[in-house]
């Protein structure tokens, strides 16, 4: 398991943690990213990585409120870390709060130019639309995810 690829070291650590619950869903193409992600250093801060790990653990055991608290705590330290917003979206998804999940994933996209993260967010948005019973919007989102992945 793992997400191979020539992503920046910090980003890959973040992605690894972000994807503990399901790396495959993020996708793992092996070619280098189209460009570095200047505005989104995943995290150089061990404290943020640990909080992400705590959140993943809490969410994995169904303690969603705790997971949200840990991620919000990390976001106070790194408010513009797109992976934190992505993780928060995943927790909302698990809580079946579909609308918020999609919105948070959109915020993660706005903060990042990383194609893989964008694809993961669009997949999450698609799933959220499915959950909310909006198949047309889900299809559009899934197409976007696929385009990002294949390009």
């Amino acid at each position, binding site marked *: 398991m793992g997400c191979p690829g020539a992503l920046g070291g910090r980003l890959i650590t973040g992605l690894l943690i972000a994807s503990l619950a399901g790396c495959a869903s993020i996708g793992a193409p092996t070619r280098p990213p189209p460009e570095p992600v200047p505005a*989104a250093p995943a995290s150089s801060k*061990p*404290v943020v990585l640990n909080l992400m790990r705590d959140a993943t653990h809490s969410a994995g055991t169904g303690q969603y409120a*705790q997971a949200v608290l840990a991620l919000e705590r990390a976001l106070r*330290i790194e408010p513009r870390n797109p992976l934190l917003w992505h993780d928060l979206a995943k927790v909302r998804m698990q809580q079946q709060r579909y609308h918020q999940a999609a*919105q948070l994933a959109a*915020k993660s996209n706005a903060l990042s130019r990383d194609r893989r993260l964008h694809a993961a967010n669009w997949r999450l948005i698609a799933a959220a639309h499915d959950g909310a019973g909006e198949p047309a919007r889900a299809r559009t989102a899934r197409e976007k995810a696929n385009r990002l992945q294949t390009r």
Partner: protein
Amino acid sequence: MSKAKKHTVSSKGKSKTAARRRRGRKRASPRRRTRIAYTFSRLAFAVAVAALAYIVYLDITIRNRFEGQRWPIPAHVYTRPLELYQDLRLDRERFIEELQELGYRRVQDARRQGSYTVAGDGLTVVARPYVFWDGPRPELPFEIQFRNGQVARLTRDGAPIDLVRLEPRLFGSVSSMDHEDRTLVRLDSVPQALIDALLTVEDRDFYAHIGVDPRGLARALWVNLGAGRVVQGGSTLTQQLVKNFYLTAERTLTRKLNEMVMAVLLEIHYDKDEILEAYLNEVYLGQVGGRAIHGFGLGSLFYFGRPLEELKLSEIALLVSLVRGPSLYNPHRHSGRSRERRNLVLDKMRELEFIDDQTAKRSKSEPLGVSSEGIQSALAYPAYLGFVRKQLRRDYREQDLRSDGLRIFTTLDPDVQQVTENAVRQRLAALERARKLPARTLEAAVVVVRSDSGEVAAMVGARKPRFAGFNRALDAQRPVGSLIKPVVYLAALRQPRRYTLATVLEDAPLRVEQAGSPVWTPRNYDQRFHGRVLLVQSLAQSYNASTARLGMEVGVDNIIAELRELGISRPLQRFPSLLLGAVELTPVEVAQMYLTFASGGFRTPLRSIRSVLSQDQRPLARYPLSVEQVVPPGPMALLDYALQEVVRSGTARGLRGKLPRGTRVSGKTGTTDDYRDSWFAGYGGGYLTVVWVGRDDNEPVGLSGASGAMLVWADIMRRLDLYGDEFPLPADVELVAVDPASGRRADANCDNAIELPFIAGSAPTQRASCASPDVGDNSGGDSGGKLRSWFKRLFQR
């Protein structure tokens, strides 16, 4: 009650009849005597029944109030907790200040909770145990090292730790009932010295008497007779408790009798420890503003800024000395008298051998030790507190808020608040001096928000921030002037086929006639018209005529719809003058509107409350929070670029050099007719700050947005710890060089060309006259090298 009264009345009636009978017969026969005796016994019985009924009534009164919840406990409101982690920007001095504000004591070798030791660049701290919203945190000893204004190392017993959260600071209370304030203490957590001191001076025989103390009363009587006035009260603690708890302060014999009876009843029902604990929480210890400080728990925080269990003997003695008269012995106002009284308490403790000679002597020589922090804290941040009150009603259910002893954790950052208050105070005074305005006429309101979470970090509602008067941040509705312009431009930029940053607008005289509103002829502040201008310049230079034309094209209804999307919910009138800001909003509303820009197009509700815990430490359910993408990434990036241009070359260019190099800032000035309101709203580095400066009587102040509010804004922002990361350009936005004169495509042949962001496919295709015609349609590409690097600098700064 009514029953008891009936008994009293009927027995009176009977006694009158008996008296008449006695008067009617001069001598009574033995038979009669028996009858009289019988009547008397009935009378006595009736009196006894009445008395008993009354006692039963008192008994019910006592028990009703003593069982269960004894006091309404107001909700207590706390600042944010300081989170410490490696690389946090924080210098050692500021950290020590934070510890002092929390009442931590500096000692040689920190071992007890609430203390710290300074050694070189580092500190050893023993953090107090605390129940946070995500669970309890036990007492935590840790070491912290600083280097170059950052936390360099965080360890516990030498082993690295990630994160330490200090406890938040209490700064206010919210109560719906009366103005009594207290924090409850349990008897087993109260220092023995406090109980010793209290019983020594107030009630030596407390554990022996039955609620009243005849010996104490006799002693008091003797002393009072000797002195010729009331020197000693002779009341037991139980009587004092009864008096404060159930009765009024009037000095009548009836009240005194009631008090004694109730004291005895209380002692029958409850044990001594329960009564003592109630006393410790009931006692009145002082007043700040409209708040009455009750109980030793809050008293300790209020006078010393520390919890009761951390007080020294001399401090305990001072608290106990206040029982006799909190204003008479007020240590802040009458330090001499207060010291005398405190030392008397210590002397009496020595007399009764609770302490030895040496301890008494040492404690008596100590300073009073009262801190101003407690008082400041109790009166601090009234504007913020007002906002918290409003948001409680928005985010929580009414019935949950009615319960007692809630703890409200806010997002207020005392450092940011301090910076904001200082900036307002100093800058307003400087402006008055420089502009020869009458002193103390300018007023201001400021809201500082974290851009991505919407958490309000600071709020100032008045020039004197401690004065709980008119909260301008929340309640002052002022015309916003040009602050509204970005909304007009956003509505236009949402239509990339019609409008881009390079669209040429006409800044020329304009006359708008619309049924139902007066004829409108907008003019520019410089009284000139600027002819053909690019859309981006029109916003950056805040031209009125071109903006009004654009707004009329886009439509007033669309602008109103845009305002709604941005979170403005108040009723708005459909006048064209709305396009230039003839709409009154509060600084908080402006902050809500600009927050969407600052957070990349996501409407995020302003929040002041992080969590609310009930008395049993359960988090209250809240209405869920949400972010909502209301502006698509493309138009948002374009608008943000234009708002950066305001600072680079527009009306806010005066900011250059006032902020740290490399800080990317977007903002907008606002000035209203005759210079009555001076506004600035701007964001960058993770913070959005909105400033209003003006006068309460709406007289002109002679300040534009840039010469007034913007200076306060800069004073605040340059002292904040700004965050470097900004939103990247969205993938569907491209950079294209244009000729600023025509708004057409430019290339390296064009001297003044500028590079602007365009939503893909919307960039101009017509070539400027300066551009060479033979280069393909992808111009701006190969020839725009120097422009590109310039542009990159802008976005990567």
